């Protein structure tokens, strides 16, 4: 009995010691000599952001940590006071909502990249689609799409299919994924025949891709803003400027984004 009681008491004590160590560790970077920014970024940026942030660190000495997630969830976290310095959303709407609530600095709201919607199929699927209309053919089974009510690229796909009059006809074939990454994984793993996803996610992938004509959907202007009240505002503004600057432009294009510079406000 006593053995077990001792264990019961000892176990938490041991773990507390381990937890205590961790606390010091985790506090160190924030209070350290150099600034570390925290960025909340839409998940479609997972590939393009690391090289951009490396370049930014090389130039400024400012390190950046990234919290990837879906845009709606990231906005909810910022609304509740998450200690984020810069928000890189997948759309404009969520940033403007935060701006209207006074939670981001209005003068920092800018489009940083314009996403391109593509339809992707596996190289070995035998499906080389030359038009979206072919999705209605019996050769195509399941089509993966990100949740059109939450994910900007999902909304764009729905819009394009509606404009072509295909949305209702395809209902039985659509599988709804949580994010465009998931939609893409459905198709890549062969569980879906085709997927609507972002060009940036498949730019280095083998497989066939069909760019959805941009006139079929509203521009996906991925928008950023500096979070209000951050103690690292100056550094966050520098990063925002860098991401819409000339050095970043080449990287955005290399990863399949268009530049919204001409339409940004």
């Amino acid at each position, binding site marked *: *009995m*006593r053995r*077990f*009681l001792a*264990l*019961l008491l000892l*176990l*938490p004590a041991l*773990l*507390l010691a*381990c*937890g205590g160590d*961790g*606390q010091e560790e*985790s506090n160190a970077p924030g209070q350290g000599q150099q600034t570390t920014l*925290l960025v*909340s970024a839409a*998940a479609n940026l*997972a590939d393009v952001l690391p090289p951009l942030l490396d370049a930014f660190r090389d130039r400024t000495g400012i390190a950046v*940590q*990234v*919290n*990837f*997630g879906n845009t709606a*969830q990231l906005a*909810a*976290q910022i*609304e*509740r*006071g*998450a*200690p*984020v310095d810069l928000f890189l959303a997948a759309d404009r709407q969520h940033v403007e909502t935060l701006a209207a609530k006074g939670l981001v600095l209005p003068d920092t709201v800018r489009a940083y990249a314009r996403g391109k919607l593509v339809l992707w199929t596996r190289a070995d699927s035998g499906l080389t689609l030359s038009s979206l209309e072919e999705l209605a053919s019996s050769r195509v089974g399941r089509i993966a799409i990100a949740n059109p009510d939450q994910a900007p690229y999902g909304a764009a796909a729905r819009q394009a299919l509606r404009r072509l009059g295909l949305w209702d006809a395809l209902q039985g074939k659509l599988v709804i994924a949580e*994010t465009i*990454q*998931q939609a893409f*994984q459905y198709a*890549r793993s062969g569980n879906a025949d085709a997927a609507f996803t972002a060009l940036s996610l498949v730019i280095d992938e083998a497989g066939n891709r069909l760019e959805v004509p941009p006139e079929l959907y509203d521009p996906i202007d991925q928008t950023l803003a500096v979070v209000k009240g951050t103690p690292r505002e100056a550094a966050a503004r520098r990063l925002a400027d860098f991401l819409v600057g000339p050095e970043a432009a080449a990287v955005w294009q290399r990863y399949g984004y268009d530049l919204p510079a001409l339409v940004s406000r």
Partner: protein
Amino acid sequence: MLSALLVSLKVVGVATLVIGVVGTLLALLLARARFPGRAALELVLTLPLVLPPTVVGFFLLYILGRGSPLHDWLGVDLLFTWQGAAVAASTVGLPLMLQSARAAIAAVDPELEDAARTLGRSEPEVLLRVTLPLAHRGILAGLFLGAARALGEFGASLMVAGNIPDRTRTLPMVVYDAALSGDLALAAQTSALLSGIAFLALALTRRLEQPARR
């Protein structure tokens, strides 16, 4: 994966401590005390067991974030910290501890406690030398189950603590990210590690749930 393992260990360590202490106290309360609202309290504490983790995370975001008494009055800011993840992990692990520990404590024969009292033992002594030792198997089984659940926590932590490498990214988040980005080897390795730990925790729990052989 190593840094995520460290984050997971910190989160589970603190969560196990919280689940152990808070869970034992609450289990005692629920098993022995009679007060109005007891059934309701038990239901509320059990809710995280069946709610989608995202709902738990959403509630915690409001309980811990801007506008909450904890945040605005006490200045405790747990969002986007591993301690915040520990709160989420504790919340989902606690119901498992309560189920097991409450049943074990309720099964202790009150006459044994009364006997200790007639022999002049104080209430804390009765608790520490009679009730808890007799219920220790159920309490430990609940603790292991709760800790295992805390290790597997994903959805609520993602909402409350985010997915920040080296700071709040836990092992389940590594699996999620790896599976989404197509790094199936990393996803498989991390899944295997988590499955192994979960298997051990369950095996320990089963052993404790079997009646003592002596």
